């Protein structure tokens, strides 16, 4: 098991945002978490990343307990989050944003290897190469999302967690983002994906979880969830 979350509870401003959430991600999987706004999906990712400290529960990654570790040591272990709303560094250039992804390993990494990582990002998103000297704040929403994913990739994650990567993007761009996610997965990166666009997410996913008001109410193989009555009526607009 690559990532396992055991009965995690989080209190957020006096409210219990997560109520004993358990979830598992195996190596090389794409696991998708579905749920409405406010179900606690982003809270879940933020607590795995160590940004929101958990009161109860246990998070294991690659046989290390990371429940109370700092965000920086969690990144070093190989978990990188691409946060909701891209959160690129608007006042830095595209290239500098990508370099920020290397922050936790750049002192130890040979330059040629970092250059190779950079080429990998440019191959996935050729537009970023064209935009490399531009301030990230001047990029379009789709380009910023590609940059956020590229920046995450520069951190050399084993597990990449993406929070709503398709939010607010044009359908063509969304398609490109999902194609890239499949490509990342075939490079050997495990993905934990949170998506409003449940259909697209389940199509590329191996397994899925459904969250409602801070709890996991359902889990299963992606193709089963796609046919599940509750999922269809609540999340697939059927």
């Amino acid at each position, binding site marked *: 098991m690559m990532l396992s979350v055991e009965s995690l509870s989080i209190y957020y401003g006096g409210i219990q945002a997560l109520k004993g959430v358990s979830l598992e991600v195996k190596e090389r999987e794409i696991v998708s978490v579905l749920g409405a706004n406010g179900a606690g999906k982003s809270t879940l990712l933020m607590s795995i*990343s160590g940004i929101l400290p958990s009161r109860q529960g246990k998070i294991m990654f690659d046989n290390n307990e990371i429940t109370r570790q700092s*965000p920086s040591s969690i990144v070093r272990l190989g978990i990188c*989050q691409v*946060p909701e709303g891209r959160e690129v*560094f608007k*006042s830095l250039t595209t290239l500098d944003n990508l370099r*920020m992804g290397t922050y*936790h390993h*750049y002192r130890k990494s040979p330059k040629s290897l970092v250059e190779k990582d950079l080429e990998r990002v440019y191959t996935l998103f050729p537009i970023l190469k064209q935009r490399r000297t531009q301030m990230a704040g001047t990029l379009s929403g789709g380009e910023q999302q590609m940059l956020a994913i590229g920046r995450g990739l520069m951190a050399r994650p084993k597990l990449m967690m993406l929070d709503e990567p398709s939010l607010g993007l044009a359908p063509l761009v969304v398609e490109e983002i999902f194609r890239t996610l499949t490509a990342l997965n075939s490079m050997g990166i495990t993905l934990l994906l949170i998506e409003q666009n449940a259909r697209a997410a389940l199509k590329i996913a191996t397994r899925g979880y459904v969250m409602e008001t801070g709890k996991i109410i359902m889990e299963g193989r992606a193709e089963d969830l796609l046919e599940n009555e509750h999922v269809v009526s609540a999340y697939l607009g059927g």
Partner: protein
Amino acid sequence: MESTHLSQAVQFIFAGLTSGSIYALVALGFNMIYNVTLVVNLAQGEFLMLGAMTMISLYSGFKLPLPVALVLSTLIVGCVGILFDRFAIRPLKKPSIMLLILLTLGGSTFLKGVALLIWGKDPYTAPTFTKLKSISFLGASFSPQMLWIIGTLVVVSFVLWFFFERTLLGKAMRACAENPRAASLMGVNVKTFVMISFFLGGALGAVGGMLMAPVSFMVYDEGTMMGLKGFASAVLGGIGSYPGAVVGGLVLGLLESLSTGYVSSIFKDILAFVVLLLILVIKPTGLMKRSDE
């Protein structure tokens, strides 16, 4: 007649650049802390006073060689900055802008009180860094300390530019300032950078104070006015902008010196506040900052 006019003007300009350089250093310290933490540190002037006083004590009291006294004072005041963050700012559970401003104001009074206990009410001064006699230029004459002051500002500006534009560490610090959460997700330890920013804020203040000590008298409460003028410079240039801090400081220094020279010295200390109010009314983003930033 012509030449005395010229030499007088040169004299005023260089005097303005000299005090302006000190204001610029204080303003740089302001921005250093503001950019990473959004704290407007009203104790910045006290860092300047502490730098000067510590240096004078180490040099004249403990008879340490001047370079050692300079470096040691910079480090000591930098550490005071760290302690200030650790024991005054960080314990706040729910920091609000107002609370933080009151807190730094309290910190400033506290540091003044400590300085009063250590050094008393007497004014102190330090010898100039080099033993040269005064320098003549176009009929005007200057203390060699002026070269140290302006030169230091040039070097500090270059080092800061290099750090923030050319190193990943500097860019990480900018990233922290812009979006601390996203920076932590990249593995940046934001608390460390907050600590570094307070260290550098203290150190920059100390450098300003040490440079100033040989050309003026330093008293335990000298920092307050310098802090306010540095703050006015930072706002004039655009709070948070490093080039703005340098330009703001130099402009304020020149305005003060020219108005004192050609009009009257009674305006000198009022001027900073007039400039502060005017810029806040006319262009609150400052001279050097684009309004879209």
